[in-house]
């Protein structure tokens, strides 16, 4: 490490103001603080500081997303080989998913971090770590069949207009990854809905070549519900028409956005986030509570017109992006409620609204994304109300 340190010290002057690479100073600073913990010591106030910093916090979230990412890669391969009707080992499936997802991950990070680096350089600030998490969330919530240029445009839009214009990491009002998804959803609706984007039907680089089987539909379970023709019973199928159960949805062997399908992988992530104390258990639990309450309510009044109301309450939570949104999106501390009471309300309403949109608005097969974005907008208001109780208490005390 000493050699590396020496090398960094040697090239450092070129990146400092006046040096010939001064325009890349923030990139160099970012790299340096990534490699070596800054030697800065406190010069005012508290002399000792905790070992935790934002880098570690963000990396822990990325680690919590790893089970989802790994399962997503496997499931992309699984759905692909299912669609073309070929047998493949789980390793082949994983390998296929890996090369299918990698370009999306690279594009997401390259575009997002590129813009952050430029922003940091313009404002002469240190590069902040916020995009570490957003960059991995984006490939997990964008359908695998999305063209890469769309991912690039959407990521650029989200980073610039949802984050940088508000002041960067820690200042954004809306969740950056969800804005990416929402941008795609509303800008390119023909690509984002229907049966096309959720399963890779073509081979990549000569791997997994084949044609889809005749019974192939490619519809996600929630897509099938949205186009349900009527009748009191729901018969959900996988992409080639075999019936599926809630157990399949719980394990994740269904079509959908890469990261959202497996409840098991999401729950492992939830355990990491709650165990390390990074995510608010108040938000996470109340999203599930709100979702479950609403799912019970709609299930109490089943109607073939709103086919999703035929789903059992627990199944509601397993299908679609609900669990992923509850664990990784709603718990974003920057865009969520920050008071304890506020977090209960914020989470509960996300759960309720997600199921409400899913069931009663046939235009949107899934409501989790919109529910979180909507509540992002209301989070400051919720906090304001909670804090105003504290203020009222203080004023009442003064009047006595």
């Amino acid at each position, binding site marked *: 490490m000493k050699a590396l340190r020496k090398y960094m010290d040697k090239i450092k002057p070129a990146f400092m103001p006046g040096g010939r690479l001064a325009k890349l100073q923030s990139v160099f600073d970012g790299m340096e603080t990534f490699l*070596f913990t800054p030697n800065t010591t406190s010069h005012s106030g508290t002399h*000792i500081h905790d*070992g935790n910093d934002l880098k570690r916090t963000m990396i822990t979230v990325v680690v919590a997303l790893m089970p989802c990412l790994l399962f997503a890669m496997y499931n992309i391969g699984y759905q692909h080989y299912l669609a073309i009707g070929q047998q493949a080992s789980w390793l082949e499936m994983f390998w296929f998913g890996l090369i299918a997802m990698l370009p999306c991950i690279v594009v997401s990070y390259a575009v997002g971090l590129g813009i952050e680096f430029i922003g940091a350089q313009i404002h002469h600030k240190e590069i902040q770590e916020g995009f570490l998490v957003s960059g991995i969330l984006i490939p997990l919530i964008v359908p695998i069949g999305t063209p890469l240029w769309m991912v690039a445009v959407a990521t650029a839009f989200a980073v610039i207009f949802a984050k940088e214009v508000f002041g960067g990491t820690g200042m954004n009002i809306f969740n950056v990854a969800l804005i990416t998804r929402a941008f795609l959803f509303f800008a390119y609706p023909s690509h984002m809905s229907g049966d096309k984007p959720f399963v890779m039907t073509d081979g990549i680089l000569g791997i997994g070549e084949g044609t889809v089987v005749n019974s192939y539909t490619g519809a996600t379970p929630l897509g099938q519900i949205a186009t349900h023709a009527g009748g009191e019973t729901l018969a959900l199928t996988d992409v080639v028409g075999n019936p599926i159960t809630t157990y399949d949805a719980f394990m994740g062997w269904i079509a959908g956005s890469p990261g959202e399908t497996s409840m098991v992988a999401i729950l492992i992530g939830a355990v990491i986030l709650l165990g*390390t104390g990074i995510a608010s258990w108040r938000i996470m639990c109340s999203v599930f509570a709100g979702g479950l309450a609403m799912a019970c309510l709609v299930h109490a009044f089943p109607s073939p017109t709103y086919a999703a109301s035929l789903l059992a309450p627990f199944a509601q939570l397993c299908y679609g992006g609900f669990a992923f949104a509850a664990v990784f999106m709603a718990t974003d501390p920057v865009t969520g409620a920050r008071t304890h009471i506020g977090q209960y309300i914020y989470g509960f309403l996300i759960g309720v609204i997600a199921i409400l949109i899913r069931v009663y608005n046939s235009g949107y097969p899934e409501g989790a994304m919109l529910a979180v974005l909507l509540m992002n907008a209301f989070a400051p208001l919720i906090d304001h109300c909670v804090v105003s109780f504290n203020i009222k208490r203080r004023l009442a005390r003064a009047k006595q």
Partner: protein
Amino acid sequence: MATIKLKKGLDLRLKGGLSGGDIGQAPAGTLYAVVPDDFVGLVPRMDKREGEPVAAGEALFHDKNDDRVVVVSPVSGTVKEVRRGLRRKIEAIVIEAGKDTEPVSHDVKADPLRTLLASGLWAMLRQRPYDVVPNPDVRPRDIFVTCFDSAPLAPGLMTVLGEDKQYINKGVEVLGKLTDGRVYLGCREDEEVQVEGAETNVFAGPHPAGNVGVQLANVKPINKGEVVWTLDVVTLARIGKLFTTGRVDFSATVAVVGECVAQPKLMRCVMGCQIGTLLGETPTENVRLISGNPLTGSQITPDGFLRAPYRQLTAIPENAKPDEFMGWASLSPKRFSIYRVFTSWLAGKREVSLDARLKGGERAIVRDGEYDRMLPMDIYAEFLIKAIITFNIDNMERLGVYEIAPEDFALAEYADTSKLELQRIVREGLDRLRAEMS
């Protein structure tokens, strides 16, 4: 008497704590100093010039806004130097101890307010709001005294007091005459102090339970327009001693502690002494010397002087791991964190080593609830900090700015993932607010 259990907060168990209650005697030095910055809110105007003789207890400077408020010399001798910094700000007044001239005596039968002001002990009191030296023209609603220090490595104040405990009664009696309300004592369960004329509350729970502001907020919070005085029990005993003997006792018992101190112990010395006399064999290379505790103390150089509240001298490593490679990715249980994102929690409760590094860069506030869990008050700490940063006076008032002092945010500053300088933010906010309101 009531027992108040506080759940929020944190006891940081640092290496280098005191092991016994033995008190050593520090060798007498020749130089002593008074630092005007220790007396927050005063604008110093010198009463003594360089080279002039001064007696112990004689005024060195007074407050520009009220010449009754004085800060006195702890020793007899001559004023050797008035150290000035930028814009001629007085940084320290150095006194060379000389032959023993008679220390100043005070008339204990006179008006207690006047005696307290003239004795210099007044400057050791603080008032909320603003956490500054009190205004003598305002009678406080109540007076709060903390009888223990819960900060990391802090000495037991009852041990520090020793035989001077006997003066607590007298101190309470004097303070009782200065308020229309009551004198409140905040104690630990095992060191309860019961005094006639004072109400005792027992506080259980981790640091900052010993902060007088936290005790005040949990007993009878302060409202807009009210003034409360705060002090510690050592100052209380000094006041009692002044009104018993007629003289101020300038001796202090200081805990010399911290990982870098060879033998942590209590030392008896005189206020404002050179810390070299206290440190003994302690190395000073790559060591952070702090007059006070590691959360709220002031950094001093090896040739520096002991600063108020003259109670603790801490030595911790300045940078224990220079150029730590990818410290954020560390899996070592030695990298201590109160959060479970590092593995240190697996090692259980133990004494830990912390150096003066920030261990990260300054960021915007991202994680929620970090400040709240370190502040046992009915205050939304994060919202208040944001109001102070934006200097929104209405919101600051509504969110309870009059109840806080910088020291109350010290623990939050330790725990802050975003590494913000909360104590500086609070101090500057309070100063600006005070200027705006006067």
